[in-house]
């Protein structure tokens, strides 16, 4: 799974692949970020629960860029090195809204089932 607890790193499954898209879009919606920072931010924001492995992150970033949902440019990073910064595009914004709403519905539905006695 791409988004995992702990250090396990493996190939993404379809279900969580879609979720990773959502997480990335959401995180860079705040500000343009490079890959490393995206992974760190997801970890921090999830309270150290979700760790995005590199094996899932970069292919996912490239796919999103190819889809035209995010764009990239090279800039100098916080430690004074060149890094590739990703930012959300207009189309990406729409996808994010849609995916977020979708996620709300899905997680609410799952919660209903899980909490049912």
């Amino acid at each position: 799974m791409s988004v995992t607890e702990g250090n396990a790193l493996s190939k993404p499954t379809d279900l969580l692949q879609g979720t990773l898209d959502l997480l990335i879009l959401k995180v860079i919606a705040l500000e343009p970020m490079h890959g490393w920072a995206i992974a760190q931010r997801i970890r921090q924001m999830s309270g150290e629960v979700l760790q995005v492995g590199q094996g899932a992150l970069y292919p996912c970033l490239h796919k999103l860029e190819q889809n035209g949902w995010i764009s990239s440019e090279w800039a100098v990073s916080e430690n004074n090195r060149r890094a590739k910064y990703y930012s959300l595009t207009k189309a990406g914004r729409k996808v994010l809204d849609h995916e977020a709403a979708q996620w709300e519905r899905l997680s609410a539905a799952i919660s209903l089932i899980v909490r049912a006695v």
Partner: protein
Amino acid sequence: MRLPSIFRLRLRSLFARRRVERELDEELLYHLERQIEEYVAAGMSVEDARHAALRAIGGVEQRKEECRDMRGLNWIDNAAQDFLYAIRQLRKNPGFACTATFVLALGISATVTIFGLVEAALIKPLPYRDQSRLVGAFASLPSNPRSSLSYLDFTDWKNLHHVFSSIDAYALNGGFTLSTGAGAEPVTGTRVSAGFFHTLGVAPALGHDFHPDEDSAATHTVIVSYAAWQKRFGGRAEVLGQAVTLNGIPRTIIGVLPREFHFAPYGAAEFWATLQSTDPCEQNRGCANLNTVARLKDGISIESASAEMQLIAQQLQKQYPDSNRYAGSATLVPLRDVVVGEVRPILLVLLAGAGVLLLMACVNVTTLLMARSESRRREIAVRGALGATSVRLFRQFAVEGLALAGAGGTLGLVLAEWAMQILVGLIPAQRVDSMPYLRALGSNLHSVAFACSLSLLAGMLFAIIPTVRMSLSETTQSLKEGTRGSAGIRWRRFGANLVVVEVALAMVLMTAAGLLGRSLYTLLHVDTGMRPDQLASVGLHWPPARYSSDEEKVALGRQIVERISPLPGVRSVAISLTPPWAPYGAPHPSTLSGSRTITSLTKCSDDR
């Protein structure tokens, strides 16, 4: 993002590949360094941190490959790589590449050439409207099931039938003497009943068709072919209304036929005149000089039409027992069969032969490929061990096979174009006139498409064989040079079977070719009952108006013999109405009473 910018991104991935790759390197390296820094900060030594980070990434190259895959254009890239690799492989083995390409090209060119012939003759429609409804109606004699009709019989058929929307006739004893300023010139052409072109569904490109009652009209008209219009009248529109004198009868030109019009059952014809029963033969029910072409009424099958024409023929036989003693039956033949009937079996035999040849070529190349894949086992095994997926390996074979087949197909197409020209050149001009559809023979879209699909099929075959071969043998075994497992034995058995198939195919071809050759030999040595060596034949034409009575014609014949006999080198001279062995009704038959052609046979002395 809008489509154009997505498109731009894709193009960038494809064409600015080096830059995209460099950026990918840099991006992953940046990540790696940050990871190392993190581990160092957590208290690891630099070396340990480095190893841990690399482990965490799990293979930089694999990550890169995944990113490339995500960019979506990887397959184009891979295909291009495979293609270049295939070309390199083929160039490394020029002997193999040349042999395989050449063998394939031979097979494909033979098949495409014959396909061109088949298409021109059997598939392309005749240049008539709704040609499937057209039939030729013949009197059926015991000696000849497709015999021609006399004018009087034709008129009766025309009046009695209920099955055709129209039936029209053309004279077999055609050919005209055209009076020109300089004298007389024999020209091709014939006489047809007034509705002839209407029945075929052909309208003149210029001018108009014959009027329906033109057969009984007092005026004489003629329609010229497109070629004659160009050649004799300079393609001028004023040709309409111009007078030409054919066989001493002045006729007015009323139309020009379309360029693509041809009527193979008669052959080449420049002038199409009205029938008007001007030939003395046409007063005689026993003198059959007409063939017919008829259009079936809607909803009437050729069988039911045939049945009715049988009855009419029987009725006429009873009515005219002298002249129609043998003509008590009728045959209807689809016009297409009248046109291509005799070449169809030849073409189908040729096509089958070419197909077998192509099959042999493919088997040959497959055998070569197998031999080569044997020597490439190690290479493939290494690639497999290094992580090439079986799909990727199959694609490699497919691209190699297609490259080979593509080269063979291209060369084959060029050879085929060349062969078609030679083939048409080999057919005597007179035969081409009766097969005018062959004139258009040459590479066209259909033959190119045919060659492409043949190449594609061959390419697929060449891709499948080595793949099957690979999957049969175990990779690990192949890694050890020269090992042979049970799969190898199975495979060698398969190879041996291929050789059996090939020898069988070759035997079929050889036997067929031998039989055909033998038939040709026999045909050339048929005892004709005469000795044709040292014989020369001369066709003679004269204006019939000047020799109208039988006495004048006999006198002309005598004079011809007298004038030729004393020529040096001539031994003896004789005259006949039709050349020996030419069937009555051949393009230039003749009757002394009516026509303009006689043949004089001249025996040359032996020293000539």
